[in-house]
């Protein structure tokens, strides 16, 4: 379970998170929507400790992320994150991209790590690209590789930060299909997205962020069908 309690975060004078409360249960898929600058991506990087927070607390299965005593490298094994820019490691083959962390972080033997990597890469449809370098892959393929790379650590939670925003429109579908498949398999996921159709189909709850505040959260039918907050109404009217 991920518990976010009254989290505040500023970059300089700009307060990007103004007291966020959110609890995500195991097996739940929560999507976060909202305009740019609403703080939704920052929240994800705070959840896995890539960004410090100013106040409040975030706990993952009872471990406080930002406590000094917390070993973040260890905690991050539990929480996979995939970014808008997929960040493929260009000097490594697809297989090496995926086996790097299992080998170096979990201390897995090469053969074992490769078996897991191959399974995950087949899972995301890249079984025939194992020895390819990322530069030979399309954006959608690189993004799916990044997903496989995160999955190879067998995380309990996955965070997706606008993973389709940097893709050509015709490549968005293949990545969303991969996310849907994960959701159906019961992965706990927090997805920041601009894909409203995806949010509606896949999530159990949808949260709407506006200027650092979680203005509204609810089941997709309720939030999309009968939004309560005026900002949610405005936002949804514009994206439709």
């Amino acid at each position, binding site marked *: 379970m991920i518990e976010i309690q009254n989290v505040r975060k500023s970059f300089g004078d700009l307060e990007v998170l103004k007291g966020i409360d959110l609890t995500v249960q195991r097996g739940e898929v929560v999507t976060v929507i909202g305009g740019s600058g609403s703080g939704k991506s920052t929240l994800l990087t705070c959840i*896995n400790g890539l960004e410090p927070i100013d106040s409040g607390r975030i706990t993952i299965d009872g471990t406080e992320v930002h406590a000094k005593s917390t070993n973040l490298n260890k905690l991050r094994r539990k929480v996979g994150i995939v970014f808008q*820019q997929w960040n493929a490691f260009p*000097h490594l083959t697809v297989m090496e991209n995926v086996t790097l962390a299992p080998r170096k972080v979990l201390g897995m033997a090469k053969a074992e790590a490769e078996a897991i990597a191959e399974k995950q890469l087949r899972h995301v449809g890249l079984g025939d690209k194992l020895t390819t370098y990322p530069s030979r892959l399309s954006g959608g393929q690189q993004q799916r590789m990044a997903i496989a790379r995160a999955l190879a650590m067998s995380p309990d939670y996955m965070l997706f930060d606008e993973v389709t925003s940097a893709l050509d429109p015709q490549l968005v579908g293949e990545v969303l299909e991969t996310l849907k498949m994960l959701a159906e398999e019961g992965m706990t996921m927090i997805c920041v997205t601009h894909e409203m159709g995806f949010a509606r189909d896949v999530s159990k709850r949808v949260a709407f962020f506006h200027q650092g505040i979680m203005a509204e959260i609810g089941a997709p039918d309720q939030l999309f069908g009968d939004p309560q907050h005026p900002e949610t109404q405005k936002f949804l009217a514009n994206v439709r």
Partner: protein
Amino acid sequence: MAARITRAAFLLFPKGRITQMFDYTFQWKQALNRLPQMLDGAMVTMEIAILSMGLGILLAILLTVMRLSGSRPLMAFATTWVEIARNTPALFQIYMAHFGVASFGIHFSPFVSLLIGITFNNAGYLTENFRGALKAIPDTQGRAGRSLGLTQLQAFRHIIMPQMLRISFLPMTNQMVWAILMTSLGVTVGMNSDLYGVTQDLNALTFRTFELFALAGVIFYLITKAITFGGRLIAARLFRY
């Protein structure tokens, strides 16, 4: 005009070979007889350059890590090194490694002093090359590594450093060329087994100054050309991505 140049060239090179110019009679054979000794010297030159490059790269990686460490004393140490290496003559650096430290009772052989001096210089320049290369690698690379649970050092070792070395590979071959040429400064600290030192000694013995140093120049040229060419071949094989 062209005809005059041709005629002049014909006077200078009657059989396609320089034999006499001004009042100097060329005796190429004397110099060529010494070629084996000079090639032995060239081996020593290459040995120093290769050693100083290997050590220089290791030190430069260390200095780069220091610069990234965030620790003020380490950053100051690395910056001081780079500043001195890049802003003082290589001759000064080699002098200090020999006569400078001798003032404190530390005595190195000319070979060791020359090696230390060139290594110091290489490390400084390479660190600066690495800094440029690091700028070309997006921050998000390290971040992606950290998000997978790698420690900062692991992310540097496995993600940042390989890319950094690739980007700075061609500048590194330049530095290798530099290292070869810098060995010639060894004569100032009494080095006489490298190419330049050998040539200097042979000159004192035979007074065939022009021929010997011209020959040394050709050997230097061929070595550095071979390095540049070899570097390109290695780069093409090593970095296929």
